Each structure stands twice: as structure tokens, then as C-alpha cells.
């Protein structure tokens, strides 16, 4: 007797790069920027804020690989130092929303009822506002600066994580092992954070990678508008803003920091994709 099993035709997803390569390239890009950021004082050829009136608006050359800006500051050095701030933006800007959102989502999903309703209505209210508008208003109230940006990010960004985790919790809390844990008399805290959360969190980790891209771009946008990093500190968004007035006469001032933003964002995206596949999360 033979049983024939008809396996469904495999769904072929078109991908830009093979899975392995996605992971390697994504992680590679992040690693390069991380190393640059950590070793900025060593690898940057010049002081990023030193103004040299004699080499103003120089196009890329051997002495200044990325050229110089209108104050004679070396663009390459500024891009390298800028990596410190932009990576910091991407990490801190994701970390706090992640922690807040995960905690809120876990509690709301696990307890349900009034707690859940209250938190989810709050989420609805925050989602009702366009993301950037809400961010900009919070920063406008707190005053410009990176600190304000992080606070605004934490206040606005956590809602996505809360929703993701809550949905997972709703499914998991009726699973067999959860019921078993309850009947064994474990405390709620233990069940929530030791048993359920580790199984619910994969999706959030993957999401945090694409969120890092969004945070990075928001940070650059906010700085571009003059509400984030303050001059003379080098940050890519600020540099693009400073270079905008020279776009037809000195393209290199805005283009190199612009490319850096794109590359780093690309790195986060790739890593997010690869992690999603590794952890078996389907979007």
C-alpha cells in the first residue's frame, strides 16, 4: 500500500539577493559603519569641525576625498564622525520604543479586559496622528536637540511594538504550555516574561530592524529641519541641509552624507529581511 502525498507547489518569492548574501551584506554594512564610528578619531583625516578658509568648496581630490564645504571643513571626516551620531540615533531611537512597546503589549495581551482596552485606545489615539507631525510637535514643545528627539521617538514609536506583541500574546496565552504553566501555579509575571514573551518576540526583533531605518531617516529629517542635532556637530541630515544651498555649485557637500544615509538604511533593511527568514517570521 502506498500513500501518495501531494505537496503543494512551493511559493517562490522573488528576492533581490540570496538569503545568505542578504545577511552578510546587511551585517557587513552595519559593521563597517560601526567600526568607522568607533574609530572616528583615528581614521578621520581631519578635525570634523575645523574650518580652513584656504580650502573652501574644494571638489573631491586626493587631499580631500569627499571634497570640502563652504567653511573648508573636510566632508569625509564629517561623514565619519557623523556615523557616530547617526548610529546612536538608530540604536537609541529604537531601543526605548522597543522596551516600552514590548512591556505594554505583553501586559495588555496577557491580561486582556480593561487593561487591554485602555492601552489599545491609547495606541489608537497616537496612531490617529501622522507620525512626523506628532514627532515635530513634541520636539517643538521640548525644544530642539537630540534629547528631545529621543523622547519624542519613545513617546510615539512604541505603539507598533505594543500592537505586534499583543497580537502574539493573545494567541500564545491559550496555548497548551501556557495553560500547563498556569495549572502548575507559576506567577503571572513568570508566565508572561519567561514563558510567553520569548516566543512572541521574534516578530518585534525583525520589525525593529526596519524600524531602525525609519528612525534613522526621521532623525536625519528632523536634523535637516533644524530641530535635531545642532551645528557645528556633524550629522548627515544636518550636512545635507547645509549642502542644499550649494547643490548646483558643490554637489559633493550634500551627496556624500546623503549616500551614507541611504547606505546605512539599506544595511538595516537587508539585515531585517535576513533575520526575518532566519527566525521564520513572515510579514
Amino acid at each position, binding site marked *: 500500500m502506498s500513500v501518495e502525498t501531494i505537496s503543494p507547489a512551493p511559493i517562490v518569492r522573488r528576492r533581490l539577493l540570496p538569503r545568505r548574501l542578504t545577511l552578510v551584506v546587511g551585517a557587513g554594512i552595519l559593521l563597517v559603519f560601526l567600526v568607522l564610528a568607533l574609530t572616528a578619531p583615528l581614521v578621520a583625516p581631519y578635525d570634523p569641525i575645523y574650518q580652513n578658509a584656504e580650502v573652501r568648496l574644494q571638489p573631491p581630490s586626493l587631499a580631500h576625498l569627499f571634497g570640502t564645504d563652504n567653511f573648508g571643513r573636510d566632508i569625509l571626516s564629517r561623514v565619519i564622525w557623523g556615523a557616530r551620531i547617526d548610529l546612536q540615533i538608530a540604536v537609541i531611537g529604537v531601543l526605548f520604543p522597543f522596551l516600552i512597546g514590548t512591556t505594554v503589549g505583553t501586559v495588555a495581551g496577557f491580561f486582556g479586559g480593561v487593561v487591554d482596552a485602555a492601552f489599545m485606545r491609547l495606541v489608537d489615539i497616537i496612531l490617529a496622528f501622522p507620525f512626523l507631525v506628532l514627532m515635530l510637535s513634541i520636539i517643538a514643545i521640548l525644544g530642539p536637540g537630540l534629547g528631545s528627539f529621543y523622547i519624542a521617538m519613545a513617546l510615539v514609536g512604541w505603539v507598533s511594538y505594543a500592537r505586534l506583541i499583543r497580537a502574539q500574546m493573545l494567541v500564545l496565552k491559550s496555548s497548551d504550555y501556557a495553560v500547563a504553566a498556569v495549572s502548575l501555579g507559576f506567577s503571572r509575571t513568570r508566565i508572561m516574561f519567561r514563558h510567553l514573551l520569548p516566543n512572541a518576540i521574534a516578530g518585534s526583533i525583525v520589525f525593529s530592524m526596519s524600524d531602525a531605518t525609519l528612525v534613522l531617516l526621521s532623525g536625519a529629517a528632523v536634523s535637516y529641519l533644524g530641530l535635531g542635532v545642532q551645528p557645528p556637530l556633524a550629522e548627515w541630515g544636518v550636512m*545635507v541641509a547645509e549642502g542644499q544651498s550649494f547643490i548646483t555649485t558643490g554637489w559633493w557637500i550634500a551627496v556624500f552624507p546623503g549616500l551614507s544615509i541611504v547606505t546605512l538604511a539599506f544595511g538595516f533593511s537587508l539585515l531585517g529581511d535576513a533575520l526575518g527568514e532566519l527566525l521564520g517570521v513572515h510579514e
Partner: protein
Amino acid sequence: MITKWKSVGLAALLAGLTLTASYAEAAGVLTIGRREDSTTFDPIKTAQNIDNWVFSNVYDVLIRVDKAGTKLEPGLAESWSTSEDGLTYVLKIRDAKFSDGSPLTAEDAAYSLLRVRDDAGSLWSDSYKVIDTAVATDPRTLTIKLKNPSAPFLSTLALPNASVISKAGMESLGPEAYAEKPIASGAFTVDEWRRGDRVILNKNPNFWQAERVKLDGVEWISVPDDNTRMLNVQAGQLDAAIFVPFSRVAELKKDANLSVLTDPSTREDHLLINHAHGDLGKKEVRMALDMAIDKKAIVDAVTFGAGTVANSYIPKGALYYYADNLQRPYDPEGAKKLLADAGVSNLTLNYLIRAGDEVDEQTAVLVQQQLAKAGITANLQKVDPSQEWDMVVAGEYDISVNYWTNDILDPDQKTTFVLGHDSNNNYSTNYKNDAVKDLVAKARLELDPKKREAMYVELQKMAKADVNWIDLYYSPYINVSRKNVEGFYQNPLGRFFLEDTVKN
């Protein structure tokens, strides 16, 4: 979301290019690009160049400032005389018409002056409070009596905000409708005003110098992005553009199809110092700041050499400018020593800047580094432009760069504002010197030009000695036009002489 794409840099340029508006192609119509659109055509309700520069060619004034911006010449008043005691002015009004064809009389002129003095919405009433009465003694004669003698009075009659309006027109239309489409007597009339986009002007056939006007019309088009506006002129979509950024001058000069026009202006940029804040009240500290700032470097790096270093609050070329005024040399070591002698160490200042103002930001980055060399820390605080002004007025700053352009020929207006100790705390600096205050008041009443000039020279010396603020640089108006446009000119007070402009 557009801002996100702007981060990519070049995309901003592409977006700008695709967003350009459509342009009229009529032969005799001059299209001029500028940053912002007008806000009103009611002369008394604005103090902004964006309004004055446009309605100056729609309205006419009793007395005009000449093309060079140095003397007064007849406008709607063909002649005038002053009484011995300087209290009575008699103006002979010329035979002119409003754009609706009705005659312009001394009655209209009197009405206009009393309106700018008395109307609740007038931003200029203080300048005209000196008028006691203004009456039409006959249809061609305007008699003005002053409360006290005033040397700058004739100059204030040339202010565009005191333009002659039609009494009958204002009364029949009402101020709201009049501010949209005024009945005036200048070279052009408002044909259409598309808010936020453009002002369309037509030649006024009833203008008393109508034969002088060569253009059929003018369109003032707002193109906010500097790069886009310049590209539009380069591509021939605009005949001319104003507010050319300093950074673009060299490149535009290379274009054979364009003329880059640098006309002398009365713009003076200065660093405001809040004397009420701690050590800034000490004269030595302010002198140290003056010595620590390299004005030449600002002229080179920010204005790309277009400006000149300033040595007085009165702009170079303006009435009573004192060319030999003190110019403290750039000397960071000397500044350090001055600070040490004054017992001041670790001076930390809050430097307020306007977000999005390219020149202000560039100056700030430069000044910050210069001050650091003298051991002074400047923390930059970037805020929205309108908020920045509110904060300056409220005294919530240590230092901040601002600028002034003269509205009238006479130095009294600016001097009163900067040194006269009137209601604005001397341009929000909280500067106090009673000897200076008294001299400002005396100079206003002095009718002998020689004695008056000596007084203003003394004032410029005293202000510099006290470092009321730090004079940075003077800069010209920089405009660009296509080669086929001739006579596109702006006088030092900002008035465009479009009645003499030709488009070939």
C-alpha cells in the same frame, strides 16, 4: 514625507524642477521671481520689504527718493516750502489722476497722512505723530502743521507706507477690498493677485508719467526655493529674480545670457548683545567680543566677498555715514587679555539663530569658532524665525545676529530705534547711556545740516565706544536678470524703478 526624500539631496533639486509654475510669455510683461508672496496692498498695514517693494510701483508718494537714494525729489507734490520756524509745510499737489480716472487732490493727500497717523491698524503711526494737522487749503494745496520741528519730516513723507490713497476709493470699497486691489496713482495697477502664487500688474494709463513706462505689465511670482528660482532664470522661464544667494553669484556671472546686478543697499548686519545678561553689561567684555570676531572672514566665507566690513550702525553711503569711525582689529589674544583683566573667565553665551536662514546659520558656525579662539563658548540655539524675533524682543538671548535696512533717507529712524532709548529697549539690547539718548533727541530737532551731521558723527563714535552692538558687514542687493532686460534697478532703500525697465 517629502522631507525624507530631500535627505537624499539631489531629489530635492528634481522635485523643485518639476514643481515650477507656468509662466506668462507676453512680450512686454516682465516676470520677476522672489521668495515669498505679498501679504497686503494696504500701505499702512505692513512693514515688510516683500510688500513695500511691490506696492511702491502701484502707489505714488508725495515726495520721492531719487534713483541714487541720496536726495529727495518731487513726486505727487511738485513743490514744497517750509516756514521759518520749521512748523508749517505747504505742498503744491500736481495735476494727477488715480487709476480709475478720478482726479487726485490735496484732500486725498491729507486723508492719507491722517490715516497712517490715526488708523488703529497702522504700523507706522509713531512716525507721523509729529503731525498736528494736515488740511487741503485748496484742491491743489496741502498744508501740514507740526507739533514741533522735525528734521527728518520730509524724508518720512517719502516712505512708501505713506503713499497717497484715494479717499473716495477707500470709502466706497472698504479697507478689505482696497487692500486686495487698490485704486492708486503709480506706474502700474493690480490686475490680479493669486494669493501664494503671484501678483499680476498692468501698466496704468492714468499715471502722470505714463509715457515713461515701457513695460505692458509685471508679474511678481513667488518661487520660495533659491535653487529653483535661479534655475528658472537660467532656463529663461523668468526674466529676473531677486534674492540671489551669495553662494551663487560667481556661477551666475559666468552665464552669458544673464546679468548679475549688485545694487548698493542700506543693509547692515550686526550682532545684538543683551547688556542685561551678566557680564555682557561690562563694556570691556563687549569690547572683547568685538575684537574676537573676524568680520573679514565672515565677509569672505558667508557673503563670498560681496559684502564689506562695517564700522558704524549707519550704512556706508547713507546720509551722515562716518567713514573714519573706529574699527577694532581682529585680535583674539587681546580679547582674552581684556576678559582676564575684567575678571571674567569661562564666558558662556547663548547664541540665538533662525532655523532655515542659510546666511544666519553659516555666520553662527563661523562666529562660534572665532569666539572659541578667545576662550568664549557660544551655544547655538536654533529656533523658528518668528519665535526667534519674539525671544529677542523678550530679552531671552545673549547674542544673536540681525539686520536692518533703512526705510527712509534720514538716519533719525534707525538711530532712534537703536540708540534713542525708546520703547523697544534700544533694539532689545538694553543698552543705556543717557548722553547718547539726549543727543539722539537733540539731533532730531536740529535743522542746520552741518550741525546735525556733527551730531551724528558723535553718535556713531559713542555707540562704537560703548559697543552697543557689534557692526558686522554691509551687503548689496543682488538680483539677476536675462540679458534682454535693461534698467532692472533697485535703489538703496529697496525701491525698484520698473517704470524705467525695458524688456527687449
